[in-house]
């Protein structure tokens, strides 16, 4: 009886997983085949899963757009800078909250954590006014970068990760005449590599895919990121679906490469902080 119920459970689980996988893969497949069809076929409501004719014309139209390479460069630059700042600052703050004794440690951490409960939409307008009106940073890299230099979510992630590192190593380093920043740099960071890798991937993907904030604070074609740039294929009365799909495919490529080459860290990252040790 027990083995029969196990088999039934296995079948149910498999069916759910297969349906889930198909639902996940179909949009990506749609995007991919849409990028190699003519605009009419790409825009059809029920897409042809196996296209009649393959065409590279959508890619030609996409790359024919003046600023595409600039948008890709902007995305790469912004994502890289935000990844570096987030990894460095979140690990510093996470280490301090996890391992250093200072007055108000817990209180400051809880205040920071509570800000995660405020929806991003609530802070969007004040942040916009601050960047554009107060600091006069409209249409600059600084405006895109500044709010994302370090996120509370990343600090939380690193705090959880740092908590799992043995404190005795910090004490040993302190006795070994290592300064406080030296302990962080020479002892903690090398040990935290898996956590840092996960943080870097998360941040890079999130920055690369960010649409709304760069869209809000930039207004010239040169300052757009690739995600904002894609929107320019939507015209007043029509949409170039083929080129849009081609652009989406190109924009998704770095993420796919990054994900599949580092998926081991991704999966590890999901369990960070769940198990001590």
């Amino acid at each position, binding site marked *: 009886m027990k083995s029969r119920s196990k088999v039934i459970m296995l079948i149910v689980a498999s069916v759910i997983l297969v349906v889930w996988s198909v639902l996940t893969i179909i949009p990506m497949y749609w995007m991919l085949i849409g990028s190699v069809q003519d605009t009419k076929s790409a825009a059809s409501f029920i897409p042809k899963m196996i296209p009649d004719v393959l065409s590279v014309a959508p890619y030609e139209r996409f790359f024919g757009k003046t600023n595409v390479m600039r948008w890709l460069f902007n995305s790469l630059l912004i994502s890289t800078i935000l990844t570096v700042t987030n990894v460095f600052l979140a690990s510093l703050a996470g280490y301090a909250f996890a391992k250093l004794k200072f007055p108000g440690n817990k209180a400051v951490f809880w205040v920071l954590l509570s800000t995660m409960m405020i929806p991003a939409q609530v802070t969007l307008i004040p942040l916009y006014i601050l960047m554009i009106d107060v600091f006069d940073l409209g249409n600059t890299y600084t405006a895109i970068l500044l709010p994302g230099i370090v996120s509370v979510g990343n600090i939380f992630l690193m705090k959880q990760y740092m908590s799992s590192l*043995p404190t*005795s190593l910090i*004490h*040993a*380093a302190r*006795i*070994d*005449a290592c300064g406080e920043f030296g302990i962080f740099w020479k002892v903690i960071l*090398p040990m935290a590599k898996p956590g840092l890798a996960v943080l870097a991937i998360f941040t890079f993907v999130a920055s690369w895919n960010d649409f709304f904030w760069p869209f809000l604070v930039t207004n010239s074609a040169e300052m757009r990121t690739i995600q904002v740039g894609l929107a320019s294929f939507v015209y007043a009365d029509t949409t170039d679906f083929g080129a849009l799909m081609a652009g989406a495919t190109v924009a998704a490529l770095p993420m796919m490469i990054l994900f599949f080459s580092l998926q081991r860290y991704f999966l590890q990252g999901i369990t960070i902080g769940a198990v001590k040790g």
Partner: protein
Amino acid sequence: MARVEFRNIRKEFVDDNKGTFTAVAGSDFVIHDKEFVVFVGPSGCGKTTSLRMIAGLERQTSGDILIGDRVVNNLHPKDRDIAMVFQDYALYPHMTIRENLSFGLKNLKKPKEYIEQKVSQAASILGLESMIDRKPRELSGGQRQRVAVGRAIVRDPQVFLFDEPLSNLDAKLRVQMRVELSELHKRLEATIVYVTHDQVEAMTLGERIVVMNNGIIQQIASPTELYANPQNMFVAGFIGSPPMNFIDVHKEGNVLRMEGGEFVIPDSMAAALSKYENEHLILGMRPEHITGEDIPVISSLDYTYSTKVQVVEHLGSENLVYFRVGNRTVTAKVHPETTGYPGMEKTFIFNFDKVHFFDPETEQRIDW
């Protein structure tokens, strides 16, 4: 090397939820130059906190700590000229053994040649030459422990601090490392402060032992003195394996009455216990001073006591026989060929030459 002194050291931990916890309640002692001193006691007795205060990893609530002639209260760990070996080794996992050994000296900006000489010297003393370029994860527990000791040696510190360094090793390796540490102490002529909860480790390694309980020092003495003359019931029960037996007795003149028997004690002993006339007191006797009837009575202070055997443990070199006196279980260490089995009626010999008496309220030893 240098002496270490605790002057009325007190350490309190304040927890928002649990309130104030006193880890060390006014310790006063001196560890002499080149001495091997062991802090021993059960979990939470304050031994590790005391060690960490010497290291500078914890700040005492009040009192002064001296290393050599310097008061080190406000000194950072790196400025105290100490080295510490941790319970979990605390080796830097991303560094090779060579890098682990040289890390402290590099931070102290010592010349390269000096560092190399010190590292190879330590590696040679501890037999680490063949694994010097390996990472800690490639080493066994015993080898990692040696590296941790090596990291301390290269520093040439005034004081070595060991925080339960053998507790992660298996029993056989622990014995081997114990011998090595003893030899190392003789070789380096170092001042060593060693923390352990294992009284066998304390007895075998320490020149003097500091027995602690609930943050209070119970007794400071040499291993033999602690064993022979424990100051109170805690020390008597903690030092020695199996621990000292405690039996409730009632004094009536020259007679000590206990459940199932009585002992007629000599006048001198009765006089020393006169304060407890017609009162209860605790008799303490080590298991090896209670023997089987197979051993002939040879002293006028040998008394016999017959009872039923509860359990017999065969250890090879000796047998441990357990029986009950009142509500206490008593252990006798008997000859391995002594016959005995659970339920058997057996006569034991109590050797009163080595008997101790304790006040039932204060638990302090009564001299006789």
